[in-house]
C-alpha cells in the first residue's frame, strides 16, 4: 500500500513512501521493502540487501531514447512496425529471455511466438534448465519457503552460494527465522554447505564439505548408497569425491536424525559436467530420504521472475522452456530447441530478446550468430545485447515503474508495487503492439493467399517452394 506525504516546499519533487515494495532482482522476490521515493528517484530501500539496494537505487529513468533502430533514435511505433516485419519475414525466429519481466508480459510474448511459429526459450535453459529436465524424470519433493522457515531443521546448500547470489535467503527463509517448529531459529537448525570452493556461504555453515571439482554425481550417489545402508569402500569414496567416507556417513546420520530436511541447490550442479544427471541424483536422494524422515529439495532460482517464465511458458505450451512452435504445435527438446544451441548451430534467422543479455553470457559461436541476424531487444538499461540489436527498446523497469506479477522461486505469485512512473513504455505495451501488428500482417497474408488453409500464412522460399 502506497502512502503519499506532501513535502513542505512546492519546488521540491514529491516525496513518497512505498511500503511492502517487491524487489525483483533475485528469486527471493522480497516483498517487504520500504522505499523512499523523491520524484523519479528512489533514495532509500529499507530492509533491502546489497543487491536489492543496488537494484532500487540504480534504476532512475534512463535518458536514452525509448527506441533505437540500427542505433538511430526512432519512435516506438516505428520500432513496433520494424519488429513485426522482422518476425513475420523470418523463417526461424527465436524468442529468448523473459525472466526479468512480469508474467503479464511473458504471456503476451508467448502469444507472439505462437503467431509467428517461433522457437521460444527462457534464461532457464542456461540456469536451472537441467533441473527442469530432472524434475520431469524423477519428480520433485517440494514445499514453499514458508514451510522451510517454519519447519526446516537441516538445511543443506549444494553448489549454491546464497550469501552472494540471494543475500536475504538466510535471514528471511532458511536459517535465521524463528519458526513454528524451530522456535529458536538458527540454534534449531543445522546448516551444511557442500561446494568445490569455500564460498562466503561456507562461513555461515555448521558443516562445510569441500568436494573434489566435478564429483557432485559421485558424491550424491555415495549418499544414496548410505541412505540405503549399502556398504562402501572408504578408499574408493575418497578417490571419487575427495572427501572421507566417515564425513559422508556423519552427514547421512544427521540427515536421518533431522525432522525436516531441505536441499537448496544451485548452478554448481546444473552447469557442471553431468548437469541434469547431477540434479536427478539429488532429487532421487531427496525421494530416498523420505523413507526415513521428511526431506524436500528446491532450486535456488536466480532472476526475479525466472520461475514465472517457467510457469507461463508451461501454461501456454505444456513445456517450461526450449519449445519450438514452428509446426503450429509445441515441441520440447532441450539441446535442440534451447537458445544457446539454436544460435550456436546458426539456425535462427531472426530473434526477439526480452529482458536478458545473451551477448554477454552465451558461448562465442552463439554470440557471433546472434550478431549476424536481425534481432529485437528489450531492456531498461544498455547492455551488450541492446547495443547490437536492429531494434532496441528502452523499457520501464518492472517492479519500479511497472506493476504486475512475479513468481518467487517457490512458485508463489507476488504482486509488484511500483515506485514512480517512467516516460519509457513498459515491455507489455510494446509486446501488445507487436502482437497486434503481427496479427494484422498475418491476416493480410491469409487474405492474399487462396491456398492458405493453414493457420499460418504460406511463405515463398528462396528455391521457389512454399513453406508453412
Amino acid at each position, binding site marked *: 500500500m502506497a502512502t503519499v506525504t506532501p513535502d513542505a516546499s512546492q519546488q521540491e519533487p514529491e516525496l513518497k513512501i512505498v511500503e511492502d515494495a517487491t524487489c525483483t*532482482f*533475485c528469486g527471493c522476490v522480497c516483498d517487504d521493502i520500504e522505499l523512499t521515493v523523491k520524484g523519479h528517484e528512489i533514495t532509500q530501500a529499507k530492509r533491502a540487501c*546489497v*543487491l536489492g539496494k*543496488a*537494484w532500487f*537505487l*540504480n*534504476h532512475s529513468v534512463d535518458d536514452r531514447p525509448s527506441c533505437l533502430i540500427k542505433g538511430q533514435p526512432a519512435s516506438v511505433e516505428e520500432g513496433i512496425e520494424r519488429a513485426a516485419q522482422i518476425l513475420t519475414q523470418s523463417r526461424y525466429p527465436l524468442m529468448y529471455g523473459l525472466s526479468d519481466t512480469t508474467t503479464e508480459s511473458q504471456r503476451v510474448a508467448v502469444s507472439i511466438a505462437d503467431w509467428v511459429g517461433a522457437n521460444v*526459450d527462457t534464461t532457464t*535453459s*542456461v540456469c536451472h*534448465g*537441467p533441473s527442469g*529436465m530432472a524434475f520431469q524424470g524423477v519428480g520433485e519433493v517440494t514445499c514453499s519457503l514458508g514451510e522451510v522457515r517454519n519447519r526446516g531443521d537441516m538445511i543443506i546448500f549444494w553448489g549454491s*552460494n546464497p*550469501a*552472494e*547470489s540471494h*543475500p536475504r535467503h538466510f535471514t528471511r527463509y532458511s536459517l535465521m527465522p524463528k519458526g513454528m517448529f524451530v522456535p529458536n531459529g538458527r540454534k534449531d537448525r543445522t546448516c551444511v554447505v557442500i561446494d*568445490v*570452493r*569455500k*564460498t562466503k556461504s561456507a562461513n555461515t555453515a555448521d558443516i562445510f564439505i*569441500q568436494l573434489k*571439482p*566435478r564429483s557432485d554425481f559421485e558424491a550424491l550417489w555415495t549418499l544414496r548408497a548410505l541412505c540405503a545402508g549399502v556398504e562402501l569402500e572408504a578408499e574408493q569414496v575418497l578417490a571419487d569425491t575427495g572427501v572421507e567416507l566417515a564425513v559422508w556417513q556423519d552427514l547421512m546420520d544427521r540427515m536421518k536424525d533431522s525432522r525436516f530436511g531441505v536441499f537448496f541447490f544451485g*548452478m*554448481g550442479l*546444473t*552447469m*557442471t*559436467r553431468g*548437469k*541434469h544427471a547431477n540434479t536427478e541424483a539429488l532429487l532421487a536422494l531427496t525421494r530416498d530420504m523420505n523413507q526415513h524422515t521428511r526431506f524436500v529439495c528446491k532450486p535456488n532460482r*536466480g532472476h526475479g521472475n525466472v520461475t514465472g517464465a517457467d510457469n507461463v511458458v508451461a501454461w501456454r505450451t505444456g513445456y517450461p*522452456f*526450449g519449445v519450438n512452435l514452428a509446426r503450429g504445435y509445441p515441441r520440447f527438446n*532441450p*539441446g535442440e530447441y*534451447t*537458445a*544457446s*544451441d539454436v544460435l*550456436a548451430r546458426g539456425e535462427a534467422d531472426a530473434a526477439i530478446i526480452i529482458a536478458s*543479455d545473451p551477448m*554477454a*553470457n*552465451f*558461448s*562465442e*559461436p*552463439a*554470440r557471433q550468430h546472434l550478431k549476424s541476424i536481425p534481432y529485437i531487444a528489450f531492456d531498461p*538499461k*544498455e*547492455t*551488450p545485447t541492446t547495443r547490437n540489436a536492429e531494434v532496441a527498446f528502452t523499457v520501464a523497469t518492472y517492479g519500479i515503474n511497472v506493476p504486475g506479477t512475479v513468481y518467487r522461486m517457490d512458485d508463489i505469485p507476488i504482486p509488484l508495487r511500483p515506485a514512480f512512473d517512467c516516460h519509457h513504455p513498459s515491455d507489455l505495451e510494446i509486446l501488445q503492439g507487436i502482437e497486434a501488428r503481427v496479427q494484422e500482417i498475418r491476416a493480410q497474408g491469409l487474405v492474399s493467399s487462396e491456398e492458405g488453409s493453414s493457420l499460418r500464412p504460406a511463405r515463398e522460399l528462396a528455391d521457389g517452394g512454399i513453406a508453412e
Partner: protein
Amino acid sequence: MSKTYILIPGRTSQQGVGINEGKFEETYQSEISVLQVALDDMEELGLEANDFVRVTSEHGEIEIKVKPAKKGELPAGLLFIAYGDYSSRLMGADTHGSGMPTSKGIDVTMEKIAAPSE
C-alpha cells in the same frame, strides 16, 4: 605440457551490484575482468596481484588480470572468475543435449604474460 587448472565461473555480489549500475560501468567491468587464483598457484607461477595471465581453454583464450584468492577459499588448481564476457569466451557451445553449455569446471591452462596484447 602446460599444467591444467579447473576454472569455476560464478556469481559474486559485486557483479550483481554492477549489473544494476550498468554493464558498461566500472563496478561490473572490473568485477568480471579479474581471475582469482589460489595462493599456492600464485606462488608457483611467480604471480602477484594485478599481474596478467593468458588463460586458454579448448574453445577460446583470454588475457586477464589476477588477484590472489583469500586463504582457504580455493584449493590449488582451481580458478574462479565472475560470470561475464571473459568467462563466456572460454566456454564451449556444446550443451550435450541439455541446453546448458558446460559453464563451470572448464579445463584451462594458464601462463604469466608481461602485459595484455591490446
